[in-house]
């Protein structure tokens, strides 16, 4: 067992979560709980991510300047932090999405070799 592998695996997961957060925020600013709910809902509960792991991801994105944070009032009239996609974040989303699609495509081809053969 090597720690290097471990590191890559977590990075992959982190990257994915980042992508999902960015994608969620395209629709407009949202607070933390709402983002978590949206990810769960949109993925039909397939991605059973612990809600807590959202927070390191949010802070990572703020630090990179992809999202910004502002104060606001949540639907039940409480003060909450709203996260908003920045222009830079929007650009990054495009990059990440195409990267993800390439990766997903590649994995799909590996997992279904007959389809690949059929095509070529």
């Amino acid at each position, binding site marked *: 067992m090597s720690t290097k592998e471990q590191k890559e695996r977590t990075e992959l997961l982190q990257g994915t979560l980042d992508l999902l957060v960015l994608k969620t925020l395209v629709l407009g600013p949202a607070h*933390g709980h709402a983002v978590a709910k949206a990810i769960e809902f949109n993925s039909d509960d397939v991605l059973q991510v*612990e809600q807590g792991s959202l*927070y390191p991801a949010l802070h990572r994105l703020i630090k990179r300047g992809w999202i910004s944070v502002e104060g606001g009032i949540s639907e039940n009239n409480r003060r909450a932090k709203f996260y908003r996609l920045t222009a830079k974040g929007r650009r990054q989303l495009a990059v990440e999405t195409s990267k993800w699609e390439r990766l997903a495509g590649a994995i799909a081809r590996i997992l279904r070799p007959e389809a690949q053969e059929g095509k070529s």
Partner: protein
Amino acid sequence: MRRRKRMLKELDQDIRDHIELETQENIERGLSPEEARCAALRKFGNVTRVTEETRAVWGSVWIEQLRQDLSYGIRALWKNPGFAIVIVLTLALGIGANTAIFSVVRAVVLAPLPYPQPDRLVVVWENRPNVKTLGTSYPDFLDWQRNARSFGEMAALTSRNYDLTSPGVPQHLDGMEISSGFFATLGIKLAMGHDFTPLEDLPHGTPSVIISDRLWRDRFASSPQALGKPILLDGAEYTILGVLPPGFRFLADADVYTPLAQGEPLFYDDRTIHAFIGIARLKPGVSIGQAEGEMSAVQEYLDRLYPVADGNLGTNIVPLKQVIVGDVGGTLLLLLGAVGIVLLITCANVANLLLARSAARTREFAIRSALGASRERIVRQLLTESMLLAMTGGILGLIVAKLGVSLMFAEFAQNLPRAESIGVSLPVLFFAFGISLAVGLAFGLVPALKSSRADVRGSLKSGDRGSTSAHPRSQRALVIIQMALTVVLLVGASLLLRTIDDLHKVNPGFNTQHVITFKVGLSPSLTRTASGTRIAYQQLLDRIRQVPGVQAADFTNIVPLSEQDNGGPFWVGPQQSTSMQDAPHALYFETGPEYLQTMEIPLLRGRFFTPADTPDAEPVIVINSVLAHIYFRDQDPVGQTITVAHWHTARVIGVVGNVKHWGMDDPGTYNPSQIYISFYQLSDQWIPAFARALSVAVRTPLDVATIMPAVKNVVYGTGQDQPVYNVRTMQQVVSESMSSQRLPMILLGVFAALALLLASVGIYGVVSYSVTRQVQEIGVRMALGAEKRQIFQMVIGQGLRVAVVGLTIGATAALILARLLSSFLHLLYGVGPSDPVTFASVSLLLTVVALLACYIPARRASRVDPMIALRCE
């Protein structure tokens, strides 16, 4: 950083809100409040971990881990305080010694001179065929000043002593006579008042003086009113013109500066008296080479213009710093090298200890590695620990350095130029920090890399404490290096020890035992006229000779071995037959008639001076055997005549033994001829000039503390204003004359002792460790019938092998280094660089030490109980 704080401040609140929202939703979905909260928490995950991970996003992971490594390191070291203390102390000694030497080297050699643009300052020497550096005569200097275009400013100076009699108590002061423009040449601005103008720098100018900050504080309580006040020097009134900034010093300590042209006309008005030092500031863009070119043309012109005085004189321009630092630079660099070796040994020793320890910690690293620690992480952990040790050692080292510097200062301040600026300054702190860092890396890296490569499965499985995966080869190599380096230091120290020992055995030509020398400032009221001065000295000596315990006493203008110079030309026969520069030169002793007997300089032919050799009698001289041998080869010199420059044609009345004036290792190349003249026979005009230089020598079996109060009593009895100063025994003078060897000898000795200690700890560690590792093997051997003696010899043999290899390498290196150094530094006397006695005794010493270091582990090995050893398995 601030953003991080703000972002993290509300994190806990955000998480609480999040969980609350989730709970609320769950309640709306119909769960009971408790169930709702549990579900929300479950869904959220570990709150603490989330907080930590979010923090990690903002904090630099590196710093966070460093903090962890540090606290872990401190705990690990705390658990084993003996180990940590040994290492830290070792490092403190190594780093401290290096820092101390560096602070000396920095102050003396590296630091620029404390004047603006110091590298433009030069000393202009004169020279003649056999003498490379000769002071300048003042008329020559004035001609240079008029003609040379290479220099911005020029100044001449000479040292002079003054007796201050008012205001306050009488006191002897060191001072200088300077030409106007001296401070301007150096670029020094006075703290108060103004510099001499060319008007004061005239033979009959207003007597004026510039005083040091120290004198200003002592005598005038730092009052600005001091300007224009009179002070009484040597009985004459001088007006204070200016006060120097604190700390100003040029070549020597001085408290009063007077205009050169108000000094002794016999000196400054004579082109043949080379009593001055010429300094100059090079114009911007002018190189020393260009200035030298111009100056040699100027001097050639003077040689043609004044063939008798200047014929064959040349000039020689040397950077001021080189003049000030002198030969000490080489010695100090040698010491820096030596102390660097000590540092290497220190590193090797600590690396060895760490290797042994890391071997014992193999299991710990295996576990960490199994739990997912990367190799870098483990290396980093180990390096952090070494850095921790190094920095602690460094801080303690600063204390060691401070102590070392003050010890060295107490011992050698007088023999080191610029000693006043030695101290632990900012660059020294940086140096200490830098070497601590380097040392931490050096001794930490090897063990760190070695241990982190440990085989995880092996160490975990074997279940022992890791002793099987030790690093005996690296350890042995480190000990061999230590041994070799120690040999180098020991050889260096003992060569110098032998040199000093030999120097002490040298007969300097007089009896150095039981002689005390000191200076007396005779009251100005007694020395107004030449005849008065003669009488005053006669009476002074009569009184001193009557002090109980004084066997003999008389005075001399130059004390042997104290570096005082008084050279001048002479001609064999009744007239001046060549130019001054082409004439042979001799060292002139102007002494009292009983000086030769007082010093017990042996009479070889003829007679000593007698009281009958008065100013009115025929001028007579005593010469040394060297002069007799060179210039009178087959004839008897007694009864012959010699013409002494600036004096008379005199009759030789006696020949005495040669005195090693320039040091016990005086090779006799500079002014080996010596001429003694009776002070009382000097011409009236010369009496005041020489009287100022006189030192009294007293032969007495009593020690200084016993005899000097009585001597001072009789001196004070003749006048209240007569300070007695510079009291030194001839033994002190002798040992100071060896300071160029004594300084490196003592320090090399200390370093070598330190190295020996460290090396013996090293060899002990290795042997003792290998015994621990071999316990089972020893047990087997004993079970199979090996005797205790054999086991003992086996272990001793292991240690000796290491020692012998180290010795061989070290001796070879020492042989090469000693040869190199002796050709560079001329420190050795009487012993060759490959002195067999030195090498043999160093080898013997090291072998004995190695044997002693092996003795304890060997005894332990021979007492191994085979049953216990085997059962351990």
